[in-house]
């Protein structure tokens, strides 16, 4: 093994690293994901509404 490239621990690095991980975990979820879930719901609702039988629509 090559000992010339040994990594040495730096002071304060563990706490800094833990904070970085925490900040990443605490982010809001991607907008495209939340939108996709909401849009699917909306599309499904629209599809359900448009699939009502025509005669029933006429009755209304």
């Amino acid at each position, binding site marked *: *093994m090559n*000992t010339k490239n*040994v*990594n*040495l*621990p*730096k*002071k*304060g*690095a*563990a*706490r*800094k*690293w*833990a*904070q*970085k*991980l*925490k900040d*990443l*975990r*605490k*982010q*809001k*979820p*991607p907008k*495209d*994901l*939340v939108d*996709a*879930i909401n849009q*699917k*719901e909306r599309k*499904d609702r629209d599809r359900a509404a448009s699939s009502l039988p025509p005669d029933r629509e006429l009755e209304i």
Partner: protein
Amino acid sequence: MQILRTTQDLNAYLRKTDCTLGCLADTGFLYGASFDDDRIFDKSVEVHELLAENSIPIFANVISRMEFIDLLLRKQLTGGCVELFEQLERTSTNTELFNLLKNIRDNNTAAIRNNESYKISEAHIKKLRRLISSYSQGTTWKSFCAKYTGPVLVSEWKVLEEELGLNFVEITEGATSEFFHAPLLWNDMVQIMGRHGMRGPDAMIVNLFLKSNFSLLITSDSDFESTTKDSADSSPNKAVFVL
């Protein structure tokens, strides 16, 4: 073999022992120093500071390296699940995803109360991937991963190894190096497993430590204490620090 339990013990040991070659660490220590909801976080950070002050590099084997990355992935995804749950409203079409995320959020909350660090399981990840991908042919899953795990595993990993002072030991069967005074043999590891009823990855660390020139092993697992103490290979100058 000495057993150290407090950072004062460790400090005293480091003053009288040359550990500049490095110390061996298990996954529990690496995880403990990374997540502030882990019960050993403060102690692990304190130990890391001592190692930094004394310029002692940290070595782990490739199994621990893999376990550590895997735990990071699971923990970061857990955080993402909790955040996603906060944004969801229960509807007629997202019940399965909603319930899964609620379950994860509840487990996480309970773990925090018990001073434990909760991580989702592999089964959770599979289910989560399937459900999230169903919303947009996989692109939503990718964007979820890119947000919570991508930065850590793609761009931060190299920096992490450098700043935390992590190094990894890779050695083949029967070989020796400057780090080992005796060859590492598969059979020795299997004997440790059989004699102590110890899992393979743990027995591998014990075998590695006993055959190595490293004086210090840092672990979160008290099983290492009796296993290393009982071993015929144990040296009086070696020490196990139990977090």
